[in-house]
């Protein structure tokens, strides 16, 4: 029996312990992300889902609904790549579960087994309007483990998880060149190790499929069913395109290697980081590879030495799908805030609405969750962020965060 651990999606209508309030949010400007911003708009959230949206003049607030007001209302923000919840703010061994260093290839490590729902950094980003995190194992080993998608509330990981396995984290380039025998010491070795493992996973997959089929036919030649191997199982799910490889690569040659791997194994990949992606826009477009760009304010050392504030604008202009991330920080600040990172993109070629797409619609689209989140439309989750001005201005405050109709933050930050 083959465990189908990678495709199950938990549909959580209600967060245990929290009553989904019936709430109406009126905004001086409501960015629905499905069309032009609505001036003096209103969003009605009933039982956790958006029941109506439009001009306040046209929509009556149902009786008994709590009414909140803000200058600007946007969809709940999506951080398209984070390690928050696995990485904690103490930055001590006991709260750092984002990277396991014993061996360089561990695709079987599940994010759901490491996520601390009570981590203060989750509350921190939630206070800045972030309602969805794509979080999990960090870049830094060749294959460090899996990622998942969560709402930024929930008492347990099961409450929080939207997608328990969203990707498998692969890192190319210097940060996973650890050498010393087990780990790759050169870029060439990195790719050869990945190819060998993917070939092994392909054989494993074929053997498993064959044995399952033959079992039904009672064919004695079918041979033994290979024993379950969690690592190969995980990679098999990538070969079946059930789960994308989230390939962290910054330098142009590493991005090119990622595209070569995709071609050879017919994989679904998402480029993560992509500091030099602006050098390969045609290639990325042709390969239909979306980019979850590094934080705009990421430090520009090492593989990011050629990073640019303008990259999101350049990639979008080239027609690529782009989302923004808070990324992975090993020191101070322990996490970035995706709202602040998108702000820099807004100021460097994208403008307010273009940058808002990076953390709402585009992120939802790339992560495959746009049926639930990322825009304000009837039937979608009642996830909203409330601001007292332009969300990207330094001096603006996030004055409220709502997840599935429940106010989860109301302290101006």
């Amino acid at each position: 029996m083959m465990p189908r651990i990678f495709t199950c999606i938990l549909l959580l209508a209600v967060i245990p312990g929290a009553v989904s309030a019936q709430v109406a949010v009126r905004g001086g400007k409501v960015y629905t992300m499905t069309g032009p911003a609505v001036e003096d708009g209103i969003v009605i959230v009933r039982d956790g889902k958006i029941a109506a949206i439009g001009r306040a003049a046209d929509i009556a607030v149902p009786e008994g609904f709590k009414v909140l007001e803000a200058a600007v209302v946007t969809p709940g923000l999506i951080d398209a790549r984070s390690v928050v919840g696995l990485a904690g703010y103490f930055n001590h061994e006991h709260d750092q579960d984002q990277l396991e260093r014993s061996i360089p290839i561990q695709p079987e490590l599940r994010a759901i087994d490491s996520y601390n729902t009570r981590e203060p950094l989750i509350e921190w980003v939630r206070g800045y309007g972030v309602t969805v995190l794509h979080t999990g194992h960090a870049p830094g080993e060749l294959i460090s483990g899996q990622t998942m998608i969560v709402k930024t509330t929930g008492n347990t990981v099961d409450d929080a998880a939207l997608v328990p396995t969203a990707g498998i984290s692969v890192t190319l380039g210097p940060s996973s060149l650890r050498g010393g025998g087990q780990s790759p010491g050169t870029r060439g070795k990195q790719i050869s190790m990945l190819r060998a493992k993917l070939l092994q996973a392909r054989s494993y997959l074929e053997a498993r499929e064959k044995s399952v089929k033959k079992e039904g036919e009672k064919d004695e030649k079918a041979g033994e069913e290979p024993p379950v191997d969690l690592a190969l199982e995980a990679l098999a799910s990538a070969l079946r395109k059930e789960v994308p490889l989230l390939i962290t690569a910054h330098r142009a040659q590493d991005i090119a290697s990622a595209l070569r791997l995709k071609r050879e194994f017919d994989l679904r990949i998402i480029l993560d980081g992509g500091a030099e992606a602006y050098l390969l826009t045609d290639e990325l477009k042709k390969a239909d590879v979306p980019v979850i760009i590094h934080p705009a304010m990421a430090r520009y050392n090492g593989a990011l030495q050629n990073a640019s504030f303008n990259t999101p604008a350049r990639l979008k202009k080239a027609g690529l799908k782009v989302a923004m991330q808070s990324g992975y920080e090993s020191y101070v600040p322990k996490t970035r805030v995706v709202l602040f990172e998108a702000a820099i993109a807004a100021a460097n070629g994208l403008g307010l609405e273009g940058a808002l797409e990076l953390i709402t619609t585009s992120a939802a689209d790339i992560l495959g969750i746009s049926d639930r989140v990322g825009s304000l439309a009837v039937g979608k989750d009642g996830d909203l962020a409330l601001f007292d001005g332009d969300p990207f201005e330094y001096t603006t405050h996030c004055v409220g965060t709502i997840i599935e109709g429940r106010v989860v933050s109301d302290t101006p930050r």
Partner: protein
Amino acid sequence: MLHRGGFLLLVSCVAATAAFAQEVPQAFTGARIIPVEGEPIDAGTLVVEAGVIKALGPAGKVEIPATAKRFDLKGKVIIPGLICTHSHIGGIGGGDGSGPVQPEVRIYDSLNVRDSGFRRAVAGGLTTLNIMPGSGHLLSGQTVYVKLRGSKTIEGICLRDKEGRILGGMKMANGTNSQRAPPFPGTRAKSAALMRAEFIRAGEYRDKLAAALDEPDKKPPRDLRLEGLVEVLEGRRVVHHHTHRHDDIMTVLRLSREFGFRVVLHHVSEGWMVAEEIARAKVPCSIILVDSPGGKLEAINLVFKTGGILEKAGVLTAFHTDDWITDSRLFLRMAGLGVRGGMSRKAGLEALTLAGAKMLDLDGRIGSLKVGKDADFVILDGDPLSVYTKVLETWVEGRKVFDRSNPEDLLHATGGYGAGADQEPYHCCFGDEGGGR
């Protein structure tokens, strides 16, 4: 005797300054001028001559010399050059792993002035920096105050006093960064004890030097370590003290009282818990706001409201980049976050300029736009605290050192291919992956 090289260095400094100063007066007209000292002037005029501010005021009330080169800045904003009281750019390397107290180590012996970090700093509107060694020691060495004049030697950028002495402070730290295996301290009490012992020895050395003024035979041999500490005890070198936790802050105040040294508290993550005590001690704070708390135990209570709380308590407060903790190109953002956290806009801008100048004892020369001060200023295309505002030009002593319309400068402002690999700063002994500061 402590500064025998002073005279020669003074000569080279004067020569360097002369080369940069503009021969012709310059008049900058039409911009909204925010002088920081005094009220903003709409459509103001700024006159610069020989690298110094000659006049400043509303259009029509300022005489523009007939020979002046004019710059029309209608719709733009002029603010004083930004001052970073705590930076690590330039590939710094201060004290090494040999011991916890190294007052003899001078950061300017390690700087690479061609490091691209300097290009990014002027792109962010910075004109004066206090470049410091890291915080992995109780005392990691002498800091240096530099002007980003675009010179390609350390001699060309360092600031000096009238005697030609290179200006700088002394970097100290307490809390966990400087605690590890011997000879470094293992606890907070040991940290304080080690420093007290050092200052007591330095005091004795100072007394011997004083006693030998009339009897040269009794003069003790030169001791570079103790010389550095004597400068601290005599108030000629301000201590820039890394400190995060509320109790560590109080320890710094206690030591400062005991030995009478002048101190600026740096980072001060939990300063909001002891704001009244800091105010009573009349000790200034150079703070940093980062995008989330934590990353180290001492920073778990770091919040954006620190600036506002210190302001209300009456504490002189400046910001710093701690570059590479935050990016010098985005230093204006720090004031934006400070205001977001409750600081007044006025205090926010002061914290990027005049407050820092005071902490470096340079407020007679820089920190505000005032007649007689150095012509260090930044031209912006809008509100200094808006994310959408760009630094268009940065001027130091009447000379343009950054121009966003120049493609090479723009590359450093935005980043991009060829913007450059940096020399990694050397932070001895702690913080493995992040190169901690």
